[in-house]
């Protein structure tokens, strides 16, 4: 967590215990903290305070947008194939339509237009992908939606975006916007769904009438206050952080591409044009994503953690086993290659020393695994 968020949170864990819905003075103090946080989140997300609905995180926000729309308006739900499961699963579960993406992970706008008709009540396209970092052209998506499905609400999952992109501007065309605090230096278990004025949803949590009857339950005051502090800190230095982290990411990925034969940068055609930073323009700064032929990421992650480099591969299922990513499959990455995927995440606290360590540790680890993967002579 960002230190600002920890500092903001602590008094609400140690000193202030009141429920903001109460009528006494401590309750009013909590209420004020909640109102302040709501204004900050509105500012950061380009919304009005009344449009901010606090949730328990990104999954709840996504579920509320998708299922809340389906339950209130019926109709057909549509989303992109690389959406987070918090969007994809409810859309598919309600018999919705899934639109493909190109090899770069960008949603196919012609395919989207073809999937839309006046029965469509919700279209969900994420602002930035959580695995490979692809930034979606949300304004162009909105144009297609407004033309082909004028009644549809546009939802964007901006969970991965807050640290790296000007969400207030880029998500402006969307009617519904999801974010999660832990992705920008806040605590886990708290997030926001922006619900624009006039957008009507069926609540998923009922009772108590909190959040203007859009989300019942006593608000997580400490978490919300910390989220707002993290968001403020994040936005205040976002442009410098993005430039610094993008440079670190580029040095890391370019260094690995130079050191490791056959390495593929996911969604990019390697060697097509030269300066790495330009090639990665369509990606958020904090993600480098690679596919490593001849290597299984399960094995690689173990070797990396022995040397205190913590990376990830695809998503994990309930047992903790790694499953091949649906995002890579949607981008047309071969299943076998997808088992050798590696996501390198950087954040506001990443340093040049972190990159140096990864550059030192990864090439020999990959080399070792490739030697062992080679067929042994009979």
């Amino acid at each position: 967590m960002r230190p600002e968020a920890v500092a903001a949170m602590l008094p609400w864990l140690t000193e202030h215990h009141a429920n903001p819905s109460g009528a006494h003075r401590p309750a009013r103090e909590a209420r004020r903290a909640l109102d302040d946080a709501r204004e900050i989140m509105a500012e950061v997300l380009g919304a009005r305070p009344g449009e901010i609905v606090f949730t328990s995180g990104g999954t709840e926000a996504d579920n509320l947008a998708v299922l809340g729309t389906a339950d209130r308006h019926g109709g057909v739900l549509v989303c992109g194939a690389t959406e987070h499961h918090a969007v994809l699963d409810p859309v598919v579960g309600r018999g919705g339509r899934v639109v493909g993406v190109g090899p770069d992970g960008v949603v196919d706008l012609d395919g989207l237009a073809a999937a839309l008709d006046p029965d469509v009540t919700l279209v969900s396209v994420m602002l930035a992908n959580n695995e490979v970092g692809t930034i979606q052209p949300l304004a162009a998506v909105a144009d297609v939606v407004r033309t082909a499905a004028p009644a549809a609400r546009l939802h964007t999952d901006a969970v991965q975006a807050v640290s790296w992109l000007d969400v207030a501007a880029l998500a402006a065309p969307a009617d519904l916007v999801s974010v999660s605090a832990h992705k920008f230096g806040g605590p886990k278990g708290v997030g926001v769904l922006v619900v624009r004025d006039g957008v009507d949803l069926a609540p998923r949590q009922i009772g108590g009438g909190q959040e203007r009857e859009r989300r019942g339950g006593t608000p997580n005051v400490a978490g919300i206050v910390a989220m707002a502090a993290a968001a403020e800190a994040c936005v205040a230095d976002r442009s410098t952080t993005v430039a610094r982290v993008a440079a670190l990411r580029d040095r890391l990925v370019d260094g690995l591409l130079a050191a490791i034969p056959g390495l593929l940068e996911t969604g990019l055609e390697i060697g097509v044009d030269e300066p790495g930073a330009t090639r990665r323009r369509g990606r958020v700064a904090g993600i480098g994503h690679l596919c490593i032929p001849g290597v299984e990421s399960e094995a690689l992650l173990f070797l990396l953690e022995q040397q205190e480099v913590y990376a990830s591969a695809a998503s994990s299922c309930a047992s903790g086993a790694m499953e091949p990513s649906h995002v890579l499959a949607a981008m047309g990455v071969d299943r076998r290659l997808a088992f050798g995927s590696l996501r390198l995440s950087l954040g506001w606290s990443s340093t040049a020393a972190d990159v140096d360590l990864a550059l030192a540790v990864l090439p020999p680890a990959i080399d070792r695994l490739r030697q062992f993967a080679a067929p042994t002579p009979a």
Partner: protein
Amino acid sequence: MRVLVAMSGGVDSSVAAALLVEAGHDVTGVTMKLWGGASDTGCCSVADVDDARRVAQQLDVQHLVFNFGDDFMAHVVDPYVEAHQRGDTPNPCIECNRHLKFDRLLRRADALGFDAVATGHHARIVEHPDGSRRIARGADPDKDQSYVLYMLGADAQARVLLPVGTMLKADVRAEAARLGLRTADKPDSQDVCFITASGGGRRTFLGDRIALHPGRLVDRAGAEVGRVDAVELVTVGQRKGLGLAGGGEPRYAVDVDVPGRTVTVGQADELLGPSVVIADLVVAGPVTGPSDQLPAQLPGGLVAQCSAHGEPRPVSVAAGPAAGSLELTWTDGPQRRVARGQSVVLYAGEEVVAGGLVP
């Protein structure tokens, strides 16, 4: 030693890990995710992975999960289904040991720098004065699993540890209880792990994957005596489920012809044969050369075992009809024929000297 312990979430592998920790080894636990999604029944259920992880946490060792689902499908499940399609009776546990635990996992362990892989099998690996090793029966005669480990080659035997093989099962449970492991009272696993009764059993599992064909039951003279609704589900030696109950001598399936949609039935003595042929041989120790030279190199007084807990019977060994096969002749009288696809394992005393599949 750096040891990777295969932890299924059962009591045997839990205690295996605990014993290795106690012996001072640098232990990492791993659960292989072979089958199934988030379901809580059958093989690799989330509950089993939870048990393995909690035991590892209690022992203060790392716990990994490896997804070998594609390998399990290619080497165990698909061949199991194909074997039934031919009318064979496969043993998927043996193929899982052959391809997953003692090949895929062992190779992964090598790549990750482990010195050994340990499992919770009830069997031992003994070393001879010439340095060669043999799989030997576990100390608990009721739980012995040496039969399903006959395929371990010299290379694997040198890198595998079987810490509970010297213990009685009751002592394994007592040790788990002493350490307060949550798996101490967990029931033993049984049957084919990827087929669950709640999922409709073998009939549903196979019926979802291959066409099941009705067939005729005929006697030795070829006269039809009944019908079965799926010839693929009939196993040589089977008596129940043929619809032939009541009246006269019990009758058994003595031959299964899937392409001909015919099951031949006969009396118990028609199931008996003087010998059994095995192929796809795995031979222990320093025995080498073509299969027709193998019998001379094997020790005398051998017994053969035809199922995991079958009764071992004395045999004499000769070269089989095809290259790479052996013919085992029962020396104490004819025995039940062994279905195609089953394994037969040869023992000299407590030790496995060879094994193979019935072709």
